[in-house]
């Protein structure tokens, strides 16, 4: 078969974009799971909420894209902190499954409310002025905004990795993941750390939503199908390592893009197939510890 380079590169680019979102979201899930032992099912809904907050800021308050990038994570972090303080904190002594069920309920509430208000059709969010247009690289056309999203999310992922693995604050966080009562005994306020960690993870999901707004339509359903794929990504990578989530996220995005070019029928299922294979060969995930 002959390979058309622009089409292949186009799919690879889409794969990288999707990979950026997989990485950002699975990173947030991994950070939350590490400290709270809760799988945040509402992560997709919070990503959707981030996109809607960006849309509101533009259409109701006249604040553009760059303001949204600044404000959306803050707003979502506050939402996350409220959820943790009001609900999640009551669940830490129970089976971890209850956290999953509660956040699933929250996801239904958020998705239902926005579907009621905005229907299923997506709302447009235009690409900010400085980032419209693109570069002609000769073998392909690279839209500026997409290049920006890939680079920005890579930077955020690496920044988060650095913060957790290489700073003092991160060492507290890792220690509290290992043994919270010991860290508390050393005088660290672990409950507050847990609250802030959830806020951080939710803020990250919101930021991903703001990044996504100009690429995908802003719609109430944008999060739910994405989060299921992200779950598969998390299972493949294993939640043990931060770098693992980043690498797996981008890697699977690229594989999905390649599949879309070579065998489009399988593009929506390829990640799940990979998950099944990984589970048979290495159940703890590529980067997970037993």
């Amino acid at each position, binding site marked *: 078969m002959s390979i058309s380079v622009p089409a292949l590169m186009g799919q690879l680019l889409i794969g990288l974009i999707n990979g950026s979102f997989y990485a950002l979201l699975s990173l947030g899930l991994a950070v939350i799971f590490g400290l709270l032992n809760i799988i945040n099912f509402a992560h997709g809904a919070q990503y959707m909420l981030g996109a809607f907050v960006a849309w509101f800021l533009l259409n109701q308050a006249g604040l553009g894209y760059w303001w949204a990038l600044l404000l959306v994570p803050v707003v979502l972090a506050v939402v996350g902190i409220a959820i943790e303080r009001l609900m999640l904190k*009551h669940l830490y002594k129970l089976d971890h499954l209850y956290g999953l*069920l*509660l956040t699933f309920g929250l996801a239904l509430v958020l*998705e239902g409310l926005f579907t009621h208000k905005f229907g299923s059709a997506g709302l447009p969010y235009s690409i900010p002025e400085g980032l419209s247009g693109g570069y002609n690289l000769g073998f392909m056309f690279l839209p500026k905004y997409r290049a920006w999203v890939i680079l920005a999310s890579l930077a955020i992922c690496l920044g988060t990795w650095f913060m957790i693995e290489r700073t003092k604050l991160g060492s507290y966080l890792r220690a509290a993941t290992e043994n919270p009562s010991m860290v508390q005994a050393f005088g660290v306020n672990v409950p507050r750390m847990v609250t802030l960690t959830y806020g951080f993870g939710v803020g990250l999901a919101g930021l991903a939503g703001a990044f996504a707004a100009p690429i995908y339509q802003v719609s109430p359903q944008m999060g739910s199908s994405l989060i299921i794929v992200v779950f598969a990504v998390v*299972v493949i990578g294993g939640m043990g390592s931060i770098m693992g989530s980043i690498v797996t996220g981008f890697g699977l995005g690229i594989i999905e893009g390649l599949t879309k070019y070579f065998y489009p029928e399988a593009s929506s299922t390829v990640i799940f197939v990979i998950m099944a294979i990984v*589970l048979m060969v290495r159940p703890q995930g590529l980067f997970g510890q037993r």
Partner: protein
Amino acid sequence: MAADTKPGSDEALHPLASRDELREARYHRNGFVVLFAILVVAPAVLYPVFLMQALCFALFACAFNLLLGFGGLLSFGHAMFLGMAGYLSAHAAKHWGFTPELAILTGTGTAAALGFVTGLIAIRRQGIYFAMITLALAQMVFFYCVQAPFTGGEDGIQAVPRGKLLGLVPLQGLAMYYTVLAIFAAGVLLIHRVIHSPFGQVLKAIRDNEPRAISLGYRTERYKLAAFVMSAALSGLAGATKAIVFQLASLTDVHWTMSGEVVLMTLVGGLGTVFGPVVGAFVLVAMQSYLSQLGAWFTVAEGVIFVACVLAFRRGIVGELEAWLRRRRQKH
């Protein structure tokens, strides 16, 4: 021991059972008698279509509860068994000309086979991972159903003939209702039997402490797989019956929201109780038929119930009732 027990009494039947177990067995037996008696006369009062829908979902929820309540495995992908069995049963009845009981068996067998394959993959992890894996596998099945030609895509398989039971009894009106009731009764009694068999005891032991069960010499993964296949097959039985009753198999039944709904039914009714899932299914189906004109608000209501159940009402309706009865008994 045997000398001072009267023949025909409960003690004579179960020489090794404790008093609590006997009381529980009596409670379950009376519960089933009351439940089936109500269901036999119910069509005189309630709309049979509503009842049949509720019964299909009740069987589905009981099958789900077998896995979560007694095996400790939270599957977030049970819609794949309900939906796939529905498709196969509808296809067999419509295009292969199968009689309804054979069509339903085809669907059930498909769900069991699907359960075997997905179970082999999913039981390699526990807890939260198990939930995420089943959800992902179900999403894969959903995408397959969207693309596969035989499912009819967005339209689904419509106008499925109900046919004649065993080629003799046309399944119309009350004949359909009592067929569904018989299937439901067979399903829940089988589940009840399984839970109280030695197999069920081992399953509960694995749920409570898997390393201990392993150290006692049980091949726990085989028990978990068997429970998973059984739960899948019974979910398939519910889905296959539903497709014949409503003469329709569609994408709704394979969608992840359906997987969430069965979790909610079980949670509302009472996780790990025998009658909870039945009550939960009736509550949810009733809610659905009364609130259907509210559209997206129904999703919001479901979400709110989820949150309320997890925060304040973890035992569910039947679980709270049983706890209240226990407290009252202890006072006397």
